[in-house]
C-alpha cells in the first residue's frame, strides 16, 4: 500500500499540485489540497471503478477540492484581507513568493483570469485535454468550454501581446 501511494505521488503528485496551485494561487494551500486528494484516494480506492483513467479521476477530485476551498470562508477572508490591505505597489505574500523564484510572467498572467477561464486554459494547454474531455471533466456542455476558451484567449491576448494567437483548434483538426 505504501508503495502504491508512493508510485501515485511520483507519477501524478507534481501534476496535481500544479492544477491545485492554478486554482487557489497559493502553494501552501495547494499542498494541503494535494494531501487531501491523496488521502481521499487512499481511503476510497474501492469507489474508483476505472471508467476514466486514474489521472482523470484524481484530477476531478483535485478540482472539486479546489472549488470547496474557494467557496469556503477561509478563502473569502483571505481575498477580502488582500483587497483591503494590499494597495498600489504593495505586493502580496503570494506574489512575493512567485518573484523569489524565476520570473513567472505567463503563470502570473494566467492567475489574473477568473477561475472559470483559468481552469479551461489550464486543462487545455497544460493538461493537454481536448475540449470534449474538458467538458466531461467539468460536466459542462462542450460549447461552454469553447466559448470560455475563446474568452480566456482574448483576455490573455491583451496581456501577453508578444505571443500571436490563432483561431481555436478543437483538437480534431477543425477550426471553430
Amino acid at each position, binding site marked *: 500500500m505504501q508503495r502504491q501511494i508512493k508510485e501515485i505521488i511520483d507519477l501524478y503528485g507534481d501534476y496535481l499540485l500544479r492544477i491545485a496551485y492554478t486554482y487557489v494561487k497559493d502553494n501552501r494551500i495547494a499542498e494541503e489540497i494535494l494531501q487531501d486528494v491523496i488521502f481521499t484516494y487512499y481511503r476510497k480506492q474501492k469507489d474508483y471503478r476505472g471508467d476514466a483513467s486514474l489521472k482523470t479521476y484524481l484530477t476531478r477530485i483535485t478540482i472539486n477540492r479546489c472549488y470547496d476551498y474557494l467557496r469556503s*470562508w477561509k478563502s473569502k477572508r483571505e481575498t477580502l484581507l488582500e483587497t483591503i490591505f494590499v494597495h498600489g505597489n504593495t505586493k502580496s505574500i503570494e506574489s512575493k513568493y512567485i518573484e523569489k523564484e524565476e520570473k*513567472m*510572467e505567463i503563470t502570473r498572467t494566467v492567475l489574473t483570469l477568473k477561475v472559470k477561464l483559468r481552469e479551461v486554459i489550464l486543462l487545455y494547454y*497544460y493538461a493537454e485535454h481536448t475540449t470534449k474531455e474538458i467538458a466531461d471533466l467539468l460536466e459542462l456542455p462542450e460549447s461552454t468550454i469553447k466559448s470560455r476558451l475563446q474568452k480566456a484567449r482574448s483576455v490573455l491576448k491583451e496581456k501577453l501581446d508578444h505571443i500571436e494567437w490563432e483561431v481555436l483548434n478543437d483538437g480534431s483538426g477543425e477550426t471553430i
Partner: protein
Amino acid sequence: MMEAEKQFKKEWKNELESNIYLNTEMKSELVEKVVSHKFKEKKQSNLVYPLVFSIFVFGIAFFLLVTIQDNTLGISSSSNTSFSIEYNFKELLVSERFYWTLGAILIEGTSVFLLFAVIKKTLRWQSNTFISKINSLLATWPRNFVIQSIIFILIGGGIAFISLNIIKILVVFFVMLLNCLLLLWFVRKLNRSACPHCGKSFTRKDVFKMTWAPYRLTCIRCEENIYLSADSRKNSVLFIWVPLISHYLLALSGIPIQIIVFSFIVVGLFFNFYIVNFTNRFSNEDEPLW
C-alpha cells in the same frame, strides 16, 4: 495547434515545472502522513448560517413575548380560566375556553394527520434512512391509525389542561405548523429546480441568489440565460393566500398581533428558504404570463 500556441504551452509548462513541484522530502512526508493516517480529513461544516438564523428567530420570539400582555413574559401558566372539573355542561358550552380548546385540538389533529401524510408521500424523502424507518413503522394502516391517534390524544389531552392564554399561543403555533405542512404537501412530488440547458440542480444558495436577481438570470454552471417559467410565476402568488387568510382569521380572534406577525414571518422564511427551491421552475425562453 499553431506555432504561437505551442510556444505559449511550452513556456508555461517550463515555468510551472521549474517552480511548482514536490521535492523528495515533501513526497516522503506526504506518503508517511497518508499511510499513518496522521492526516485528518477536515470536515467542512459551516455553522454560521444556522447559528445566525437560530439567534434571529429566538431573539425575535423572546422580544415579542416580552412586549405583549401585562406580566414580564407575556404569558401566564395559571389563570382564572384554567380547567376545572366543577364546570357544569351549560357553562362549559358558553365559555370562551371551551371553543378555544376545541379549535386547538382540531387544528392539532389536522397537523398530526398532515405531518404523517407528508412524511409518507414526499417522494424525494423516501431515500432518507430516517424517513424509511418511520415509513416502515407506519407500513400498515392499523398501525398508522394507532400511532397517530396516540399522538393526537396525548397532545390534545395536554391542551385540555392548560390555561387559555397558552391555548391561544398553541393555536398560533399549530396554524404556523399547518401552513408549513401544507406548503410541503404541495411540493411533495417535486424535485429541485434545474437549469433547462445543462440540467444542473440548483442548490438553496443558487435559488436564493436568483430569486433576488433583478433582471435576466444566468445558470451558475453553464452561464446560459434562463427565465422563471410563467407557471411558477403564477403559482408563487397562490402560495401566499393560505398563510395570509389563516393569519388574518387569527388576527380577528383577539390574539396579540405580535405573535401572529412572528408566525407569518416564520412561514414566509420557510417558504423563501426551502419551498422556493422546488416551486421555482426555469425555462430557456421568456414566457409571457398571459
